[in-house]
């Protein structure tokens, strides 16, 4: 019993990192209707730069690098939009191209080295569970950013505009909301949040040049799992993924531990489909 509880706690702490990346994923999805495949690459870039520069300056430099990459994505998005591209998949694939390019840049500058820094040497024992202070910091930052994003979306004028742009871009545009600017801003904020996630991973589990795409895919799962409707679902999706992963890798090994989280994703999706889909017919 104690062992299970320990795994759940570890899963929640892991899930907080997924949740951090799932947040920008759902923001982009809600305001642009598309997925930014480069999110994981921002995280790796931040970690790479952060570990090279080191210290507080490293944190700033890492965030700066991630932001710069996200600005590039925002520029690509603006360019695509100007060219008349509306298909979300085209935007997603352009971001995939950027992710590949960033991954390759990291490989040519830093090679195959692992990015990992150590923040705390001591371990806290809470309720009999040994926890690194770093994972608590990760969780706290995750909660904080969730709260900020929530307040931004639901308590500010900017958030109202973002949501309006998401529900009906054309209508929002017509009523004077700068939709393209908002969407571009969302891509850039993805760089900030992705960068923060990357730095937190740098100080906890570490990562290397291959991590970009798989981080993106995990967080894509987290963001979609409970329905891509907003930050809270995305965050909970991340936590759920973390818990399922921790339970399966703590209780099983090999193929079984790899397959269980995937099966859970399928089941959650199937359950969502049963209740959720009804054609609204024809009239609003």
């Amino acid at each position: 019993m104690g062992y299970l509880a320990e795994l759940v706690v570890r899963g929640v702490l892991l899930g907080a990192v997924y949740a951090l990346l799932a947040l920008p994923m759902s923001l982009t999805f809600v305001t642009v209707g598309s997925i930014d495949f480069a999110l994981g690459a921002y995280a790796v870039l931040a970690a790479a730069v952060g570990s090279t520069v080191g210290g507080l300056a490293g944190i700033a430099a890492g965030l700066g690098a991630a932001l710069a990459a996200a600005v590039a994505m925002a520029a690509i998005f603006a360019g695509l939009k100007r060219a008349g591209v509306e298909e979300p998949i085209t935007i997603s694939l352009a971001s995939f191209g950027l992710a590949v390019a960033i991954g390759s840049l990291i490989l040519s500058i830093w090679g195959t080295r692992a990015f990992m820094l150590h923040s705390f040497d001591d371990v806290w024992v809470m309720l009999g569970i040994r926890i690194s202070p770093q994972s608590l910091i990760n969780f706290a930052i995750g909660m904080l950013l969730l709260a900020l994003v929530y307040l931004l979306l639901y308590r500010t004028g900017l958030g109202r505009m973002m949501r309006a742009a998401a529900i009906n871009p054309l209508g929002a545009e017509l009523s004077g909301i700068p939709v393209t600017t908002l969407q571009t801003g969302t891509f850039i904020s993805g760089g900030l949040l992705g960068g923060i996630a990357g730095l937190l991973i740098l100080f906890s589990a570490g990562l290397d040049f291959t991590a970009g795409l798989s981080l993106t895919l995990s967080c894509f799962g987290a963001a979609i799992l409970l329905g891509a409707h907003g930050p809270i679902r995305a965050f909970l999706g991340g936590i759920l993924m973390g818990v399922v992963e921790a339970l399966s890798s703590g209780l099983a090994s090999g193929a079984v531990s790899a397959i269980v989280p995937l099966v859970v994703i399928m089941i959650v999706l199937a359950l969502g489909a049963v209740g959720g889909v009804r054609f609204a017919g024809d009239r609003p």
Partner: protein
Amino acid sequence: MSQGLVARDVVMRFGGVLALDGAAIEVVPGRIVGLIGRNGSGKSTMFNCITGFVRPTEGRIDLDGAPITGLPPHRVVRAGIARTFQTPRVDLRATVREAVLCGCYPLGRCGFVSAFLGLTSAVREEIRLREQADGVLRQVNLAPLGDQQIGKLAMGQVRLVEVARGIAAGARYLLLDEPAAGLTQSERNMLADAIRVVAKSGVGVLLVEHNFAFVRALCETITVLEAGRVLAVGTADEIAADHRVIESYLGSEPAALVEPA
């Protein structure tokens, strides 16, 4: 049993909301029936129950004596009940002929496999469907526009295309969802003529409309809904004279009464 599309005692609950509370309507081949009511009176819900897009909580809908209650919507279409949408749902880049061809879908007999194998039967069937579509276009006077892109047509013509698409597969009943909305007077007249032609060919038409004048000019009988229940049924003139109807529905929009169709 009897000919006609008959809905009886239809009850529809959405969560706690009672959208329909024992509503009923009857459409006969060759006749045009109107269904009117205020916003929220349940006429759209009734429309969607008949076409299978929502499944009524209770009640019974029969098509020429056979029950169609709760059938999936595409089966309802195949059984002979066509519908249009209030906001036309069309691919603006498609041509008029292509759109009407889409409506011919249920006429196809060749299977999926023979289609992708490109068997002669499938090729022949395609020719037959095109002939059918051209026939429907002539029937509603759209033949000259066959190769036009829908995006370039006026709203009234788009509604006509929708009607043609609906009856292309030989529907015996046609359900029109606010077809006159947003049309100019001359477009309305053109549409009304087309609907009369369709009805004359033996199709039973159910018109869900907001514009009473349009309904009055077209329909032999009219059903008025109020809070999910039938408030009144009668000829156009009877309805126009019914004080309950005037109070409940027309009262709010007196202009609708006087405006000629």
